[in-house]
């Protein structure tokens, strides 16, 4: 009976040691690969930011006053030199004096 208990304890401790070691290996593995993942994500963020900057720059160039004006000229649009100003018409039945 006593011998059986001793064997059980031995097996239990061996399993416990194996499980704890495995957990440690897993955790270490997780830590090391997460660091790599983080580097990958950081690099990706930088790439996306750079791409974003490039696109902002493209938008700024193509919407610039000079670009629009050149495009308008190419399309044959021109400035109207004679400006006609329309005054606001009086409302119907308007009276300057209170009725």
């Amino acid at each position, binding site marked *: 009976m006593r011998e059986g208990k001793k064997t059980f304890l031995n097996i239990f401790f061996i399993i416990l040691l194996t499980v704890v070691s495995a957990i440690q290996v897993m955790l270490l593995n997780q*830590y090391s690969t997460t*660091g*790599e993942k*983080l*580097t990958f994500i950081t690099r990706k963020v930088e790439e996306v930011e750079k791409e974003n900057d490039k696109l*902002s720059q493209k938008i*700024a160039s193509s919407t610039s*006053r*000079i670009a629009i004006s050149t495009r308008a000229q190419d399309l044959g649009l021109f400035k109207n030199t004679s400006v006609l100003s329309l005054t606001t018409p009086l409302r119907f039945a308007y009276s300057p004096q209170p009725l």
Partner: protein
Amino acid sequence: MARRMNFIFFLFFLIFCLIIIRLFLWQIASSDRLGGLAEKQRLVTLTIPAQRGKILASDGSPLVINQTAYGIYLEPYKISDREKTISFLSKELDTDPSSISAQIKESLLWIPIAHKLDEEVKERIESKQLSGVVFTEEDKRYYPEASMAAHMLGFVGKNAKGEDQGYFGLEGYYDEQLRGRNGVVHQETDAFGNPILAGELTKIPAENGRDLTLYLDKTIQYIVETKLREGVERFKAKGGSAVVFDPESGGILAMASLPSYDPAIFSQFPTEFYKNPAISLSYEPGSTFKTLIMASALNEGKVTPETKYNEEGPVEIKDYTINTWNKKYHGEITLSEILQYSSNVGMVFVGSKLGKDLFLNYLERLDFGDLTGIDLQEEATPPLRSKSKWYDIDFATASFGQGIAVTPLQMVRAVGAIASGGRLLEPHVVKSIKTNDGKIIYTSPKVERIVFKPEVTRIVAEMMVSAVDNGETSRIKPPGFRIAGKTGTAQIPIAGHYDTEKTIASFVGFAPVDKPRFVMLVTISEPSTSPWGSETAAPIFFSIAAELFSYLGISPSD
């Protein structure tokens, strides 16, 4: 046996002592040095560069943003074919091969060759797969509107430490705010350089530079620059400036000067182009100054709109004779006609009525001789002579704008006081500043002082309208609109006398008169086709004004 035991004991004791000494040296005496070395091995310090702030127009569209650029470095010990590398780089970088060759020293680990290269150049060099050529990322300023408002924006160059620094205009004035602050990361890394998440991490985030939003309206700036360039070419002038000022807020809606430069390639232009003439050029305002002296005399009640002057001939002041500009004399004329005919002798009369003390007092109240306080680097002001250095002839000539120097900005601001009911405003370029945490700080309009009574400004404005409608410029003004304005033609003083050939022609005015939306000054330096302001600066002013009416939705009835 005992001797042997003693020897063994002594040997162990000695080894133990040596270990203790060694441990003492490592752990106590050299602890800091070794700790540092260990940290250096496992800790990486990275700089997080702060992005320089953007400069935006009043509608939020970008005038200056950042672009990724590249610095190119050489590692001499890795270069396999030195001649081929130098020859290719010199072609791509447009530099002399000898200048690259001179920089390469075998004793150096790396040598910076060029900065702020475009991505296309980097890709071309990279495609050659030259050994010993490395790139680093840098930030570069990008100008979507090319050279628009170059004098207002300034540029970013390198300081003595090799760091980016803003020079001139907004880049110079707001350098601290635009620059931001770099951040730092201290991180524990593994053998491959990947971060250890459970390790040490100290992070001071970068504080990006603040974004500036300007009063500048891109469309108005474009109109002003286009018309000014056309005018300078048409009148074969040496240069010119135009300033458009908002009389409500004191904001600068547009400011252009010629000759100008491209801030993206500033080093390819002569350095004298960098200074903004609109805020630093001293010139004699000529007849445009008459409006201010007239307003001062009316404000003090020394003359009234009914006052008349008998313009019967030249005026003698001691040894000097003052004539009208065309030597024509109109007999009895009103104050309004003095401005309309741009009568120098009439203004000598008005100036004398104002009196010397009040004359100088108004110059000071209009801030002549002082900086306007505009938020642009390199603003300058010609000094105002001390009271003891003013002689009778000086008061007489200054009353029609000669013998006194101002900057274009000072002049447009002073006339702005007439347009804004007598309020002298501090001019501003920046409308708001956006901080890193998204907070927006607005620049509120600042009234420096009230110089003129509102009723006086209305009288002077009507006189200026009359000068435009009935004077030399009546044929060229946009029909139907009420524009207050005044021409000016000043000779350029050279070595104590005036150059009879060279002039600075100008036109200052505002519109619509009843509720001014803009005050504008156009100055043209040394026009060749005609020396007169009415034939050079005025047509430019009116052509800009005509487009502004359309753009701002101002109808003739306004």
